[in-house]
């Protein structure tokens, strides 16, 4: 909070922040959960993370957001942790196997 910004900045610092935000908003709008339930869970994650260190509102904030969403979707049986981990590994493998500059696509799994 040292430097209060006076100019308009990017809405999201990193593409994945935008992506996880949009994913959550979309799931809410599609009726998979109430926003108040989400906010309560997210608030609890922030509180827990905030005990260990002072959160900066940037990367810390979206790390807590992602962790909350993963837990939330697992609980509601919308995205099983094992499936998510397998796809994460598949994406990593795809990046490693793709020549620099070429589009990265996931082989059908």
């Amino acid at each position, binding site marked *: 909070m040292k430097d209060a910004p006076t100019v308009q900045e990017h809405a999201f610092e990193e593409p994945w922040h935008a992506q996880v935000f949009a994913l959550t908003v979309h799931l809410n709008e599609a009726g998979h959960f109430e926003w*108040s339930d989400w906010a309560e869970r997210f608030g609890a994650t*922030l509180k827990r993370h905030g005990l260990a260190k002072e959160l900066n509102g940037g990367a810390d904030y979206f790390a807590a957001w992602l962790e909350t969403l993963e837990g939330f979707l697992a609980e509601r049986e919308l995205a099983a942790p094992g499936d*998510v981990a397998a796809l994460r590994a598949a994406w990593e493998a795809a990046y490693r196997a793709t020549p620099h500059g070429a589009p990265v696509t996931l082989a059908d799994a």
Partner: protein
Amino acid sequence: MGWGSLPFMPHDHSHDDPHALLPSDPALRVKALETLLTRKGLIDPAALDEIIDTYENKIGPRNGARVVARAWSDPDFHAALMADATAVVSEMGFYGRQGEHMVAVENRPEVHNIVVCTLCSCYPWPLLGIPPGWYKSDAYRARAVREPRKVLADFGVVLPDETAVRVWDSTAEIRYLVIPQRPDGTEGMNEDALMDLISRDSMIGTALAGTP
């Protein structure tokens, strides 16, 4: 937004690298979620792009500034806004996608309003866009309630002693918009000109409106 371009990724790798730049761990986890939910038919990737485009390019503090400038200019609009902000801003096309209620709180010589979300980061998205990093920080969320005058001073806002500070804690259901005081010397200015004096921070309460 394409995942092919990652403008904020550190670009310190050698160009002899055989493979594509590996995204960060959280970026890969988000991609995994997105792939899984798409395959299950629970989400539409095009809708994600539309949401991102909206929040990056279409929604921002200009929406809120339009509301404030009109409230300064039109007494009937002002009265309606203070009575039922949700209805008034919805009519202008600025409605909460999460179904939240909007409440306008007005700064006066006797009281200055400041908005925080102590739970997480509830914020009037349709009027102000995505909140700035400091609004989401632990420092602001804790201190705005405990020592609002000191927080305001950090933002360069020093209020007369006789001005009370009122802190509004946003929730998932209620979001607040601060109507800053109209500055002196703005008589006769039209809404568009007034909008340039109304910053995002002035509508959170951590700044005053600018002067012409």
